[in-house]
């Protein structure tokens, strides 16, 4: 996030964003105070966490919960809250 910000001469006029889907480049992981961590042994891959995550930060591979996108997870804790088997712990960063 320490990149040099651009001058008025280097950015599109009018606040336009010329690139589609570039919100992905905006790393919001730095906002986090509590970090979700998963206990693989307890997880039943119900994907409630994936459904509820407001920032699409639950990774899924082959239909299974495959961890967190820590670049974008803000640590809101919704995943831990909705998990029916309580396999997600929120740990202070």
């Amino acid at each position: 996030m320490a990149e040099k910000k651009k001058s008025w001469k280097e950015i599109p006029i009018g606040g336009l964003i010329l690139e589609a889907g570039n919100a992905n480049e905006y790393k919001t992981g730095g906002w986090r105070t509590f970090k979700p961590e998963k206990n693989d042994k307890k997880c039943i891959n119900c994907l409630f966490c994936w459904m509820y995550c407001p920032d699409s930060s639950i990774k899924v591979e082959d239909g299974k919960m495959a961890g967190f996108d820590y670049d974008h997870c803000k640590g809101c804790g919704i995943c831990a809250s909705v998990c029916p088997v309580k396999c997600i712990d929120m740990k202070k960063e």
Partner: protein
Amino acid sequence: MVNTKTKKIPLTGDQAVATAMKQIDPDVVAAYPITPQTEIVMYFSNYVANGQVSTELIPVESEHSAMSACVGASAAGARTMTATSANGLALMWEIVYIAASLRLPIVMPVVNRALSGPINIHCDHSDTMGARDSGWIQIYCESGQEAYENTILAVRIAEHKDILLPVMVCQDGFITSHAVEGVQLFEDKKVKEFVGEYKAAHPLLDVDNPVTYGPLDLQDYYFEHKRQQSESMKGVLKILPELFAEFEKTFGIKYDFIDTYKLEDADIAIIALSSTAGTARSVVDELRAQGVKAGLLRPRVFRPFPNEKIIKALKNVKALAVLDRAESFSAEGGPLYTEIKAALYDSNIKPMATNYIYGLGGRDIFPDDIKKVYSDLGAILKNKKVANPINYLGSRE
């Protein structure tokens, strides 16, 4: 007239503007009628109904919606126009700023009318003067003829790739909007050629190259976007002469940021916008016949403010009066006056200056009123002193 072969036809200022819009044939017009602009929308609606234009006319339920629809249409890539007056402009307010900030080249004829309250439908400049810092280019027209010409020119100004700012083309409510004058129209073909086809750089309808208009812009970049706007507005001062020259080449009519009359050797001068300049010009002739060295300066472009042009034109003037058809309630005089005074500060001339607020709510300004101003200027010149910097011309004491 070079290159054009049309005769003068009798039109009101509103009809003249509606005719310009017909010839421009914009992609979208979203407008709401309000006196004294109503005729513009009325005539233009006729052109749409008669199939004389291919414009998509959006009859909205308010001016807030009119400008919102214009913003949407312009962002989509359409050549977009609207028109309004007074309280209609006030109701648009929020979106007026957004149009400028999003750099959408919307052209809006404004028929100047007093803002309520008390409610009044007649001419003064309180509506557009309130919007002078909204980021729109503002052009003030003396006649229906000029409103016609400027409406056409404004399309090119707004859409210039190094400008991309919306333009207000202002004329005096009723005085020129409803008075019939002989208007020299250009050939449809010439106008079409002059305005050309609008190709937006980043239209929303270009689905292969999706862009985002109007995202949240906080502490990190908002300032830079405002800076771009102000640099672009300054740039207008450099770019307009090219467009004036092209306009002259096409239509044979010379344009400049300002219009002067017998100012070169004038000792005393009046500075006024729009139709009042016509009255002042006849008074100048009368006074000149009596040996009084009177002159006149009429800024045509008010935003951006043509500071250098004005100062240069005033170089020989010893005492000047700025006529403001709007009160800014700053207790420092009207908007044109404070602008002129600010311009003088950095210049190497220092004429004595005085301000007259006049014509509010359509109060007529007569040649005798103008004569009084020149006579006051004569006294200022003689006494080498400005007795009253701020005066109210035509208000009963």
